[in-house]
């Protein structure tokens, strides 16, 4: 090292020692604690990135499941191409590589005034900043026939990957050839807008191979296919001719579980396997903590920090937030929320300015059969005037057609985003 450089280095060291937080270096003392509630696409990413960008911040992640199981790609479990194991990733590296303290427990209450969270089993945790990434809860109160647990085990949602996904696959296996698989889609917004239509494709892929006389009936509460309309419509027509029937404006009013009947406003539809994706709202803990600010369903946030508009020092991410117009509730978007939030939390805890020009992306891949996929993409940047995230003009778009190469990229996307959050 040159002498001149050495002097600079020495004075830099002295200067750094004067910065609060740096004094703690040798001892590794932290400048504060962040608690993250929920280890999905949003929460796990936030936990990792806060530690990565703010190594002097202590991070505790509370997650009720022992492993992460991905919803994206889980429709491939229904077609038979994947098992839940293929979609499962351990939380271990968050601890071993990034020093996140992972607690397998459930947060039952948040006290915003005292800055503490209560756990179902463990002792309460205090925080300087809380990141709540609770995902969604199902509004079963809107479907009287599904209000009890036994009914919910017969008419599955399979909209959180895991046991329900496996159970739905078993129902399909038990369905007679010539049977009807009916899927009910709630009014938007809901988690993963292309997901139900991808599911119709992949169930049809399974049925056309094993039970070719069967039908896939899509009962959509919306006026039209909510995502990738042209691509899905083409897939149903070309890949599964005569098998998939799409009905718009078919909102579910109730279910008769005994007869597997979907009750719509003007008709009843009987199925052999009935799959109901119920209307959704922010995960339960958000309601308890007073974080829900819109339509009694979603959590309003400041898009520069993802801090709740209702409570200081509490940030909300992922599917639970009141999303900016056209920003879908997707795993990819949740990952992006988490990074904007992590950067802001690290800056705020260091007394620095929050980055004022975030740009984030969305990409949702959907499989139309076991190997071919299509995507929709979008780029959003912070709109200072509207205080929201707005699509960048002329950016983003759709696949021109379903291809094998995009099927491979969809796999590549999954492996990489899982590694980005947990690896």
């Amino acid at each position, binding site marked *: 090292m040159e002498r001149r*450089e050495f002097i*600079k*280095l020495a004075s*830099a*060291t002295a200067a*750094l020692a004067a*910065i609060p*937080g*740096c004094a*703690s*270096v040798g001892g*590794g003392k932290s400048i504060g604690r962040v608690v993250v509630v929920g280890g999905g696409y949003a929460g796990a990413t936030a936990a*990792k*990135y806060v530690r*990565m*960008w*703010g*190594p*002097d911040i202590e991070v505790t992640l509370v997650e009720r499941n022992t492993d992460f199981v991905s919803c994206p790609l889980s429709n491939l479990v229904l077609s038979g191409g994947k098992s839940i194991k293929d979609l499962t990733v351990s939380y271990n590296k968050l601890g071993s590589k990034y020093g996140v303290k992972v607690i397998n427990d459930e947060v039952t209450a948040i006290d915003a005034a005292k800055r503490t969270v209560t756990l179902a089993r463990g002792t309460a945790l205090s925080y300087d900043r809380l990141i709540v990434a609770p995902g969604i809860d199902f509004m079963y109160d809107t479907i009287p026939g599904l209000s009890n647990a036994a009914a919910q085990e017969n008419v599955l949602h399979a909209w959180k990957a895991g046991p329900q996904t496996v159970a739905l696959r078993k129902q399909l296996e038990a369905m007679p050839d010539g049977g009807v698989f009916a899927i009910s889609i709630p009014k938007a917004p809901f988690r993963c807008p292309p997901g139900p239509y991808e599911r119709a494709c992949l169930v049809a892929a399974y049925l056309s191979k094993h039970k070719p006389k069967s039908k896939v009936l899509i009962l959509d509460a919306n006026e039209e296919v909510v995502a990738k309309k042209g691509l899905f419509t083409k897939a149903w027509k070309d890949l599964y001719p005569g098998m998939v029937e799409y009905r718009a404006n078919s909102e579910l009013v109730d279910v008769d579980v005994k007869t597997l009947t979907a009750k719509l406003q003007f008709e009843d539809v009987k199925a052999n396997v009935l799959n109901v994706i119920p209307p959704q709202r922010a995960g339960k803990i958000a309601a308890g903590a007073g974080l829900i600010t819109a339509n009694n369903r979603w959590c309003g946030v400041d898009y520069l920090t993802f801090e709740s508009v209702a409570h200081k020092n509490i940030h909300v991410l992922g599917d639970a937030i009141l999303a900016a117009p056209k920003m879908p509730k997707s795993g*990819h978007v949740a*990952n*992006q929320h988490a*990074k*904007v939030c992590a*950067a802001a939390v*690290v*800056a705020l805890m*260091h007394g620095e300015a929050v*980055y004022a*020009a*975030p*740009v*984030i*992306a969305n*990409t949702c891949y959907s499989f139309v059969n076991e190997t071919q996929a299509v*995507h929709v*993409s*979008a*780029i959003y*940047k912070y709109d200072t005037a509207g205080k929201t995230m707005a699509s*960048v003009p*002329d*950016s*983003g*778009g759709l*696949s021109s057609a379903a*291809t094998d*190469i*995009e099927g*491979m*990229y969809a*796999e*590549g*996307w999954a*492996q*990489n*985003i899982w*590694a*980005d959050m947990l*690896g």
Partner: protein
Amino acid sequence: MKKIASAICVSGVLAFCAGAVQAADDVGGRNLAAACAACHGTNGHAVPGMAAMAGMDKTYIVKVMQEFKTGKRPATLMHQIAKGYSDDQIALIADYYSKQK
């Protein structure tokens, strides 16, 4: 000073101070690049299935992104992504990834 400070911070001795001394551009590059990481890996360290960008030449990244933007380079998706970024933003991202080991 900026260079020296970051040299100290990556040396590990004062790694905890990195946040305190990072210049605005570095933070901007880091934050913008993080959006790409969902597909291209944390700090550009991709796992198989997507291109790794860590340590890629800065001018190469800028050139490729421009080619995606204009449609000169065939792509399934990147043309749509590249159009979402200004030249300045691409330069910041390229600079960030080129410096990752």
